[in-house]
């Protein structure tokens, strides 16, 4: 195969050296992590081979590119284009196939995410369906609200998070409402389900809204309306679904469970250490607090059941300079200890791979090593298996953005 330009490696161990130290870790999952960590660059040849009638195209910071990729084991790689100084992997198109290239060598064949049939349609209200409900290979994604109280009102948004900035851009570009109308979402989902075998899960998320009679009631009320509208599409009272939302109180969680067909509940604590949480997520710390966040997750298990509640962390952000853990070893130990504590109480933890993004306050920082992420993913999965917790609703297929839950395929 033809090689493309050789890019100097960063000052760190090579992929082969790192993987060699972890012979029991799947190479394909390590590739996923490394691509997410370093980002992507699509060659001109690859971009020319992208077929908008078959592949999903996404806009990020005004740049259109293929949304994401699948490895040959069905693993999703959700990664974003990154500048050359971050040493991104290249995606090229060689001998009729898209390939990942590192330092001039082809490392794997990849497939671009297939475009669902409903993507070219519009809602009755005139909105492009693909902007109301987006698609992963097997999941329907609803980013219900671009407003986040922590970011937009208090200026205390999570420091790694580019989403409020990014989704505000998208909503302006497509004239979408700040908060999606339940009827529009329902219409898109009904249309998406006309394609047999295409989707296995519905994921709903949005920014935090703290107002209401009880704090977060406004957010809860909206999600209940949204879920009830979606529920009208299904013949069963409950349907495979995940709500990623603020940490509701027990009373609120009971309403969520009883008044909707929601299948699982997630509330992302982002960082599993109180001191770093307070620094990295100041809005969450101010309004809820680290310990209360954990307590609310545990209480959710009583309502949604073991195996139906989890929390997400932005893996690696706990090492962010200048107030993060001074060493990867300390960060790993602290994170896994806290994940163990949550697992003992029925809450499982999943991680994403922190790749500093434009639009976030941490955009100029550097993510930790591949070795760190391999240890983190392995550690979280070992904890999950040890406590007999499943993560079916947030696994390689229902989500695809957590290297640790990719490993749960063998559990």
């Amino acid at each position, binding site marked *: 195969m033809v090689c493309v330009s050789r890019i100097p490696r960063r000052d760190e161990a090579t992929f082969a050296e790192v993987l060699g130290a972890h012979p029991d870790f*799947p*190479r*394909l*999952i390590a590739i996923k992590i490394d691509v997410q960590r370093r980002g992507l660059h699509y060659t001109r040849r690859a971009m020319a081979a992208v077929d908008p009638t078959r592949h999903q195209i996404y806009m990020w910071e005004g740049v259109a590119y293929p949304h994401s990729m*699948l490895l*040959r*084991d*069905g693993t999703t790689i959700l990664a974003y284009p990154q500048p050359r100084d971050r040493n991104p992997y290249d995606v090229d198109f060689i001998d009729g196939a898209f390939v990942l290239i590192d330092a001039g060598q082809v490392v794997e064949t990849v*497939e671009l995410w*297939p475009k669902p049939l409903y993507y070219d349609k519009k809602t009755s209200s005139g909105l492009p369906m693909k902007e109301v409900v987006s698609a992963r*290979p*097997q999941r329907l994604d609803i980013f219900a609200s671009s407003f986040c109280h922590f970011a937009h009102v208090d200026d205390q948004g999570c420091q790694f998070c580019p989403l409020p900035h990014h989704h505000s851009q998208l909503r302006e570009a497509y004239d979408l409402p700040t908060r999606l109308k339940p009827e529009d979402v329902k219409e898109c989902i009904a249309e998406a389900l006309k*394609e*047999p*075998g*295409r989707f296995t899960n519905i994921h709903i998320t949005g920014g935090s809204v703290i107002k209401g009679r009880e704090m977060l009631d406004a957010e809860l009320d909206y999600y209940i309306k949204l879920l009830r509208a979606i529920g009208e599409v299904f013949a069963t009272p409950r349907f495979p679904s995940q709500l990623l939302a603020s940490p509701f109180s027990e009373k609120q969680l009971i309403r969520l469970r009883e008044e909707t067909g929601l299948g699982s509940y997630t509330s992302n604590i982002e960082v599993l250490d109180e001191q770093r949480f307070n620094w990295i997520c100041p809005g969450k710390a101010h309004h809820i607090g680290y310990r209360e966040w954990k307590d609310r997750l545990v209480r959710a298990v009583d309502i949604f059941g073991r195996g139906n509640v989890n929390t997400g962390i932005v893996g690696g952000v706990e090492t962010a300079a200048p107030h993060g853990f001074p060493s990867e070893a300390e960060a790993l130990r602290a994170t896994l200890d806290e994940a163990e504590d949550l697992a003992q109480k029925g809450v499982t933890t999943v991680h994403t791979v922190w790749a500093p993004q434009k639009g976030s306050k941490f955009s100029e920082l550097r993510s930790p090593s591949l070795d760190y992420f391999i240890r983190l993913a392995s550690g979280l999965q070992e904890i999950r298996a040890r406590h007999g917790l499943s993560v079916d609703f947030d696994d390689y*297929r229902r989500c695809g953005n957590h290297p640790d839950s990719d490993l749960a*395929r*063998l559990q």
Partner: protein
Amino acid sequence: MTSRLSPAVTALLDDPETIKILATVGADGAPHAVAKQSLHLGEDGCLHYLELLESSTTNKNMVRSLWFDGTVAITLAHRDGRSVQIKGRPIKVHITGELFQRHYRALRLSDPEADLASVWVIEPVAVTDQNARVRREAEAVRHPHFLHLDRLARAQ
């Protein structure tokens, strides 16, 4: 892609009366052999089969084989005596896309209760003819010491 299997093996694979067994290995080395009648020759020249259960032992073993470069064994046996074993390597799994959805629609037509987890792609590595006569003749040529003497004794 051209089939890596001979026309005789392909014919056996295509015969609806052929019993098709897929044997995989667990993390502890335990063998796991089950009938997979959906095994067929894919357009890419590899063996394909439909996995209906995401959490099945076979599916997990297949993922492990793909991740760690392991092999699987497929036995095709027909009541007329034809029998072959194919050693293969799982190289890909379809969990979405055109091929997956085509199989999903066909499966649901034949069994409205069924769901489809994945379509596995197994690259054939070696084929052994397991027909009893063929195996016996091969052993006689390669291992002439492996037999009981009474079989060679003069008739009394």
